[in-house]
C-alpha cells in the first residue's frame, strides 16, 4: 500500500540546514492502523506532510499503491491528494462559512462531480458519522466532536485509499477523543488504511502499530494489541 525508502528532508535555517528526516524506511500494508509518535521536532509531522503530498522529500522513494510519488507539480499533487488521500486535522479545518454538508461535499466538487450526486454522497457520509440532522449547520454551531466528525466525513467523501490524521484528538476532551477514536477504529475495521500522528500514549495504543521517531530516524516500530476505544466510553 505504502512504501517509503531512504526518505530525507531538510529545511534551511539561516545559513545552515536542519536535517529533519534522516533516511526513513517504512512500509504500510492495506488495512493497517499506524500511530506515528515522537516528541516535537522529531519529524513526525514532516513525515505525514510528505506522505500527504503537501510537502516533498529531498531524496528517497515514496510509492503509494504502486504509484511513485515524485516530482509532482502542484496540479498533479492536488489531483492525487483529492483521489488518494483523506485528511483529518487537529483543528478540523472546516470552512467556516460553509455548512456541514457543503464542507463534506467540497472534495467531490474538486473532483468535478455533479451537484446532486455530490450532495447525496455527502449526505450519506454525514449519516455515517451520525450528523445527518446537522447537515445544514455551520461549523460554529457544532461542538468540537461534531466538527471533527464532519471533518472525518469530508475525509471519507472521496473514498480515499489512505486516511491521514494529524493529532485528530488534540483539540478534544478525553470523552470526545475516545468517541472519535472509536469511530476511526470502526473505519479501520471496515478496511480503511489509517496513518495517525499523535503524542498521546492512550490514543496511540488504540492503533495496531506504533512507530516512534526521534531526531528524524525511526527508533521503534512495533505491532501492538489494539485497545478498543469502546471500553473507555
Amino acid at each position, binding site marked *: 500500500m505504502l512504501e517509503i525508502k531512504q526518505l530525507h528532508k531538510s529545511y534551511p535555517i539561516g545559513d545552515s540546514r536542519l536535517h529533519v528526516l534522516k533516511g526513513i524506511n517504512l512500509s504500510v500494508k492495506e488495512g493497517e492502523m499506524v500511530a506515528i509518535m515522537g516528541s516535537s521536532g522529531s519529524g513526525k509531522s514532516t513525515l505525514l*506532510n510528505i506522505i*500527504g503530498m*503537501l*510537502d516533498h522529500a529531498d531524496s528517497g522513494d515514496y510509492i503509494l499503491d504502486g504509484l511513485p510519488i515524485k516530482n509532482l507539480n*502542484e*496540479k498533479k499533487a*492536488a*489531483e492525487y*491528494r*483529492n*483521489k488518494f488521500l483523506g*485528511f483529518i*486535522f487537529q483543528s478540523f*479545518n*472546516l*470552512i*467556516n*462559512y*460553509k455548512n456541514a454538508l457543503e464542507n463534506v461535499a*467540497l*472534495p467531490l*466538487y*474538486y*473532483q468535478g462531480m455533479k*451537484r446532486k450526486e455530490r450532495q447525496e454522497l455527502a449526505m450519506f457520509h454525514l449519516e455515517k458519522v451520525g450528523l445527518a440532522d446537522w447537515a445544514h449547520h455551520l461549523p460554529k454551531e457544532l461542538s468540537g466532536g461534531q466538527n471533527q466528525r464532519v471533518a472525518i466525513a*469530508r475525509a471519507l467523501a*472521496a473514498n480515499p485509499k489512505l486516511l491521514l490524521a494529524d493529532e485528530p484528538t488534540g483539540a478534544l476532551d478525553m470523552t470526545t477523543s475516545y468517541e472519535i477514536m472509536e469511530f476511526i477504529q470502526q473505519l479501520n475495521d471496515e478496511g480503511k488504511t489509517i496513518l495517525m500522528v499523535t503524542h498521546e500514549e492512550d490514543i496511540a495504543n488504540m492503533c495496531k502499530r506504533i512507530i516512534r521517531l526521534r531526531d528524524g530516524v525511526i527508533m521503534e516500530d512495533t505491532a501492538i494489541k489494539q485497545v478498543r476505544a469502546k471500553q473507555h466510553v
Partner: protein
Amino acid sequence: MIKIFGFLFDKDTWQEVQGSLKKNTLRSILTMVGVWWGILLLIGLLGSARGIENNFNVLFEDFATNSVFIGGGKTSMPFKGYEEGRPVILRLDDVKKVEENIEGVELVVPRIMGNAVLSRKTFSGSFNTTGDFPILNEVAKPDLTSGRFINQSDIDERKKVGVISEDVYKQLFEKDEDPIGKIISISNTNFKVIGVFKVVNFGGPQLDVHIPFTTFQQLYNRGDRIDWMMITGKPENDINQVEADVKLLLKNLKKVNPNDNRAFFGFNLGDRFSQFTGFLKGMQFLTWFVGIATLIAGVFAIGSILLITVKERTKEIGIRRALGATPIMIKRQIIVESVTLALMAGFIGIISGGVILMLINNAMLNSNEPWMRNPSVSISMVFLSLLIVVILGTLIGLIPANKATSVKPIDALREE
C-alpha cells in the same frame, strides 16, 4: 474555449463566489463603490455631453453655420489723409459689391437695427428692432411659433407689419391671447403683428422685433445705410477666407488701412460653431479620460481589497488545496470574484447613471430654457464600458489570484 470558460456556466462556480462575497457583504459593497462611481461618471457625463450636443444641433439647425456677420466700426489708423477714429458706414450698394466681387460668397443679407419703444394698451418697453429682408430666412431662419415672416410684398409696399419675439409677446399680450393681426405701437407708429418667433441667442445683442427693411428705412429715415451684413459662404469655400476677402474689399471701398482691425467688426458663426463642436469633442475626451481613470482607480480598489481578503483566507485556500483544488481552480475563483464585483458595480453604475440622465431630461423638459436635449448614451457605449470593466477586473484579479497560490499549501495550513 468551452473547456476554459465552461466553469463560468457552472452553477457551483457562482455558488462559491456568492459564498465568499456574502461572507463579507459590507466589504464587498464598499469595494464596489469605486467602480460604481467611475461608471456613473462616465455614463452621466457622456450622456450630458450628448444632451448639450443634441440641443446645440437643434438650435443651429436653422442657421447657416458657414456664415459671418460684418458691420462698420471706427478706424483705428490714419489712412490716405483720413484721421483715425472715423466711423465706417456700410450702405446697400456695398452689399451689391460684395455679392459681385467676392467669389466664395453665396448670400449677403443687409440688416439695420435700432432701439424702439414698443407699446400696447398700458404695457410698454424698449426693444431692439431690426429691418430685414425675407432672404434672412436663408441664413438665420427665425424659429416661428405662429404666423409668418416678412415677405416680398411687405418690402415692396413698405407695410407696417412686425414679427415679435416671445419675450415681447409675453410683455405686451395677455396669457393665451392670440397676437396675430393685433396692432402694437412701434416708435408711436401702429404695426400689425404677423408672427411670433422663439429667441435663439448665440452671442451678440438680442433681437426682439423684425419689421420690413424698407419700412425701417422710412420710419427712421435711414436712407441706404445698413448696420451689418450677414454673409454666407458657398459650401466648398472656407468661411474664414471669405471673411478676410470681404473685409479687404470693404477696406478698399471705404479707404481704410488694410492693417486696421478695428474698422469692421465681424462675428464668424462658422468659427463659433467649430469652436463649440471642438469644445464638445474635448468634453467627450475629458469624460472618457476621467471616467476611465476613475474606473481604473475603482478596479484597483477591488484588487487591493481582494488582496487583503486573500491574505485573510490563506488558511481556507490551504484547506481547499489539501482537499484537491488545483492552483488554476483557486485562481479562476478569485478572478471570477473580482470580475463579478466589478460587473455588479458596473451594472449599478449604468442603472443609476441612466436614472440621473432621466431626471436631467425631465428637468430639461419642464424648463423654459433647456440647455440639454435628450441626454443619452448609446448601447454600444454601455457595452464598451462594461467590456472595459470586465477586462480591468480580470487583469487586476490576476494579482490576488497569483498571491493566493504563491503560498505553499503546507504553509497555508499552518497559518492561523
